[in-house]
Structure formats: C-alpha cells, structure tokens
C-alpha cells in the first residue's frame, strides 16, 4: 500500500470529520433524555405554581430533587455507551449545572425582596445561559434552544399578566420537551 503525505493528511481530515459528526450525534442522543426529563419537571413545577402558589418552594424542591436523581440514573444507564473521555465531559457538565443552581440560589438570596414572578423568570434565564454556553462546544442546537426559551421567558415575564406560571409551563417546559423529542430523532441512541 502506497500512502503519501497528502493522502495521509486527507485521511486524517476525514477521520476528524467523522469523529466530530459522531460525537455530535452521541451528545444529541444523550441530551434528548435530559431535555425531556427537565421539560417535564419544569412544566409540572410551573403548573403546580399556578394551582398551589403557597407551596411553590417545597414543590420546586421536591421536583428538582427528583430531577437530579433521575439525571444521575440516566447518566449511570448511559455510562457503558460512552468512552472514558466522554464520561469526564459528562461529569463536568453535571458540575456546571450544579454551579448554575448554586449561582441562581445565591443571586436570588442577595437580591431580596424578589417576587415569585421575578424568580420564576430569572432561574430559567440562568439555565438558558448555560445552554447557550454549552452550545458553543456541543452544537448550535443548544444555542438556538437556549435563546428561544430566554426570549420567550422575557416575553412571558412582561406580557403574560396573570397567566405567567401557565405560560412559563408551556414556554420553558414545552420547548424543552419538544427539543428533546427532536434531538431523539437526529441523535444516536447507544
């Protein structure tokens, strides 16, 4: 077999392209489960906010607890499907999500007094910032998803009137679920 330098360079480029496309498909496939999960959690939370606003804190605490437990369960279920370097990346993403939660809690704490409506819009905006930043590395889809939810969140905050919680259920939860279902179509199931 004769391979010159140009052939070798072209082959390595083709390998890089195939690896990049595959990684994107894997990330999309895995992310789909998380988006659907957090879409359901978010939608349930905002609907519960509307029905029982006096129990909002405890409801969100329980729902987020369930969400994090399910996130860890999905991660464990996927662990044999990904390579060690991808596992490290997944752990870093989980840590980044945790940092965002802590950041949101700290900011809402020092900015008191805040209304439930302000907190209800601020927390998803912080998470959508995370989506947009993640999209810089993992695919434009996450930038689009984060930007769409952020813009809709602002629109709901300013113009939804008394329907804020129900509109947020549709905007935040609905878009996450829809995005997750779309990613399931284009991503790789391992």
């Amino acid at each position, binding site marked *: 077999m004769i391979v010159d330098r140009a052939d070798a360079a072209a*082959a390595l480029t*083709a390998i890089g392209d195939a690896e990049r496309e595959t990684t994107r*498909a894997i990330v999309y496939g895995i992310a789909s489960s998380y988006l659907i999960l957090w879409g359901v959690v978010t939608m349930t939370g905002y609907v519960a906010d509307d029905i029982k606003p006096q129990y909002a804190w405890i409801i969100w605490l329980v729902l987020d607890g369930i969400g994090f437990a399910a996130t860890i369960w999905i991660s464990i279920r996927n662990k044999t499907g990904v390579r060690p370097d991808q596992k490290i990346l997944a752990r870093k993403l989980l840590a980044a999500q945790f940092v965002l939660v802590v950041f949101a809690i700290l900011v809402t704490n020092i900015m008191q007094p805040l209304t439930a409506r302000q907190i209800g819009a601020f927390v998803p905006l912080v998470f959508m910032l995370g989506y947009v930043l993640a999209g810089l590395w993992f695919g434009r889809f996450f930038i689009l998803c984060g930007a769409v939810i952020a813009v809709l969140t602002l629109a709901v905050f300013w113009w939804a009137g008394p329907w804020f919680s129900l509109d947020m259920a549709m905007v935040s939860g609905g878009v996450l679920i829809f995005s997750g279902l779309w990613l399931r179509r284009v991503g790789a199931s391992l």
Partner: protein
Amino acid sequence: MTDGNPIIHQATRLKIMASLNRLGPDATLDFTRLKAILDTTDGNLGTHLDALEKHGYVAVEKLFEGRKPRTRVKVTAAGRRAFKDHVAYLHKIIDDGGETD
C-alpha cells in the same frame, strides 16, 4: 507501529471505523444513524460493513424492535486496535514527511 492497513484505509471504511471508535465499549450504533453520519447510501454502507465484518473489525447485529427490523453495528476490540495502529501510521507519514509502501 505497524504498516498501513489497506482494509481500513479505503475512504468509506476509514470513516466507519472513525465513527464507531467514538462509541463506548458496549455501545452499538443504528445502521440508519451511521448512514446519516457518513452521508452515504444503504448499499455503499452495507458493502463496506460486510468487508469490515469479514476481517473481524466490526460486529453487525440484526434484531427486531417490535415488528421493525433493526441493524446495529459496533467496533470489535481487534477493530479498535487496527484503527489505532492505522491512525498512528498516518501520523508517522505526516511527521516523517515521506511516502511509504
């Protein structure tokens, strides 16, 4: 370092191996998803998967999900080793700036 691998070096087979090598140890990839990733046709992908399977580099599994037939593909341990050796061989050519046979 070994010599180049003519089975793997073919353009489509090289991309198949690169793609499957990104998966974890027990992961398989759906035939249709692999086809989309590589932007190729059913016939082309099937032919090259047959060649790689014959040499023990990939394993092809046919199964049914409900009534729908599914083909899933994974790289074998021998395939990963051969791919790694071939990539090292390509890098060596670049580094040495020469030609090899």
